């Protein structure tokens, strides 16, 4: 966004010591574009949101008087004669982490101005994300059919269902928003907006490949959060 005026020479000073750089003029993070800095700070704020969700989950897990259901049983799938614990969740986790890889590659190709590769990889990321949401929908359906409700469930503590729907729902919303933006950005990549610097419809700011990196930050964050949800909710 700020690289709007190509005629002015903007100098990014050399690295100084941490405190000197912070206290210097104009920019605290040298060479970091506005959008990226904003995404980072937003993600710290969002980290608080998810941490508080998880801490609340742990608190009610201790405060509830009924037994906490065993997640490996609840989230198991029957494959043939076997009951494979956490099968679906494992696949979902794998897919989401893979999508982080494709996202990272998309960023790389974006900066290399390789429009095609960048676009395909963005598309792949979006497809992975969408299939993650799809499997989550499947899991929700399965549990709802088995009688799990936000206020009660057949396996034990009522908080189990409420926490499950709330946290995965909130995370799933994040993924969905990510997918929507990925699709929009993919379209922009293929259309060449980032090469021509076409102005955004709403913001009227010029497009730039940086946007893909910012998108990537968000996407990796959503993946990372999933890892914590996986560890604390499904494995514990």
């Amino acid at each position, binding site marked *: 966004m700020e690289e709007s005026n190509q005629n002015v020479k903007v100098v990014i000073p050399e690295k100084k010591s941490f405190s000197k750089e912070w206290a210097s003029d*104009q920019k605290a993070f040298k060479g970091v574009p506005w959008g990226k800095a904003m995404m980072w700070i937003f993600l710290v704020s969002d980290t608080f949101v998810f941490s508080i969700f998880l801490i609340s989950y742990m608190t009610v897990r201790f405060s*509830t008087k009924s037994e906490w259901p065993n997640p490996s049983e609840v989230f198991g799938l029957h494959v043939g004669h076997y009951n494979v614990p956490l099968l679906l969740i494992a696949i979902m986790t794998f897919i989401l982490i893979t999508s982080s890889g494709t996202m990272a590659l998309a960023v790389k190709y974006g900066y290399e101005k390789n429009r095609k590769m960048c676009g395909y990889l963005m598309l792949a990321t979006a497809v992975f994300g969408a299939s993650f949401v799809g499997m989550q929908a499947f899991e929700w359906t399965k549990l709802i059919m088995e009688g799990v409700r936000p206020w009660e469930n057949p396996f034990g503590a009522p908080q189990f269902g409420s926490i499950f729907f709330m946290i995965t729902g909130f995370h799933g919303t994040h993924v969905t928003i990510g997918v929507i933006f990925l699709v929009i950005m993919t379209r922009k990549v293929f259309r060449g907006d980032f090469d021509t610097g076409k102005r955004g419809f709403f913001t009227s700011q010029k497009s730039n490949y940086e946007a893909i990196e910012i998108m990537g930050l968000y996407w990796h964050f959503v993946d990372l959060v999933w890892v914590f949800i996986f560890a604390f909710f499904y494995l514990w």
Partner: protein
Amino acid sequence: MAADSYDDVAKNKESIPELEVAPQDLYHAKSFWTKYIFCQDAKVIGIQYALTAAAIGMVGLVSSWLMRMQIAFPGVIPMDAAAYYQLVTMHGMIMVVYLLTALFLGGFGNFLIPLMVGARDMVFPYVNMVSYWVFFIAVLILGASYFVPGGPTGAGWTLYPPQAITSGTPGGDGLGIVLMLVSLAVFVIGFTMGGLNYVITILQARTRGMTLMRMPLTIWGILTATVLALFAFPALFVAGIMMTLDNMLGTSFFMPAIVQFGERLTYDGGSPILFQHLFWFFGHPEVYIVALPAFGIVSDLISVHARKNIFGYRMMVWAIVIIGALSFIVWAHHMYVAGMNPWFGFFFATTTLIIAVPTAIKVYNWVLTLWRGNIKLTIPMLFSIAFIITFVNGGLTGLFLGNVAVDVPLSDTYFVVAHFHMVMGIAPVLVILGSIYHWFPLITGRFLNERLGRIHFWVTFIGSYSIYFPMHYLGFMGVTRRYFEVFEGDNFTYSITGINQFITVAALITGAAQFLFFYNIIVSSKFGKKAGKNPWKACSLEWQTPDVPPTHGNFGKELPVVYRWPYDFSVPGADEDYITQDTPPSAVANAKAEQT
């Protein structure tokens, strides 16, 4: 200054840092709608925030009048206990969140940040505009709760479950509480959009020469408060979501097994204390979200109107930052009587008392700035001095409440009400009022009426002291807060009634004075005395714009270059008693500025 000093700049080329922030691509409005309604100029957005906050603040003010009438003269205005609780709740929440937070960060933040750091606008003007409209929707949702069946929630501004969502509480089984929670969540979303803008503008878009340690303390206060808000509001947001689910879907996050009117509700096994922790993890930083911008702004007002540099600038900055950091680890001092583990109380009492150290440093520094200053008793200065007095008063009672053993008998009495109104009610409001008198000439190009202003000041200051000072005594007498009726004779001495009546009369007068102030604003913006450029002879950048009031883009053709801190007042050897931040050293070669 900026425009004609560019030859000097050329001569001193070595002293100007190289450009690191490319010129901003400003949005230029094309129609009436994009110019005045969906405006992307931070100054206009700031004014929109301020007006909206003031409008809903009036609802809060009138609520307080009605409450006071009920306490002192029951029956004059007919109301039942439910209505009283609704008034208490809406008054508290409106004042804390929708008035003070929105006004300081949304209002002053938007107006002052780009001007004071030398930027043309916020870094993401579009997001900034959306932020205001989301806030506006939050206010509408809050307002809607007055019109739903059952009315707004009467759970107290702390919204503690289980009572907040059970049917005995007004709005508890209707839509009242839901609308309150939804409105708060929407507020948080809107604030986050604005807050990211404020932080990034301050950190990443300052003009050349504006180092962090040359920023006015106003900016430091707003920056730290915004960071606090970005990290504290998530707790409120999540707690709001969970309580909404408890209420709408029957989950049991906060609800234990509970019997109501002899009937067992379906809730089971939730933790009401969890809500208190989440609420106060938001709530305590929140009080500093309101206090820190006030600290910053008042430092600037004192310095300008005493014609003296701020005493201990660096100390002031660090005090702000340290208070901000500490405010995240003191929250449970609001929960001493909630049945926590005693060791918790010990820990939180310690941290609470430690926070008084940087706070006291700030107070000393304000007083030392005044010390032997060339004090001009302008209206902003009067408000600033009044702020110091009330803040010290409230801070001292905070020390009482911070000790567990002292707090247990005082908790939930009027002593607490006195404490937080002194520190969070009056003190920041005095700063807001003072700073409106200070910056009004920048916004409109005219002064506010001086005589009305002085009447407003004295009535407000003496009036609010008359309201809250006697409340300490009521608290010692054991008068409980949030009681619909206070029975003299049975539990309390007879002096209670007289004091309550005195307070109510003071409250009515003080409130009325605020309407005088609104009148002053409306009339003076049209007919006030013309102010001209930099009427207070201040050094900071917002007064150095080529046009007054500043136009879109703030600084005309060239952004200013900053050579010094914003407190070069009464510098020996200088021609004037102030040197603006954008004055190059060559223009004031004889001045012996100590700090740059």
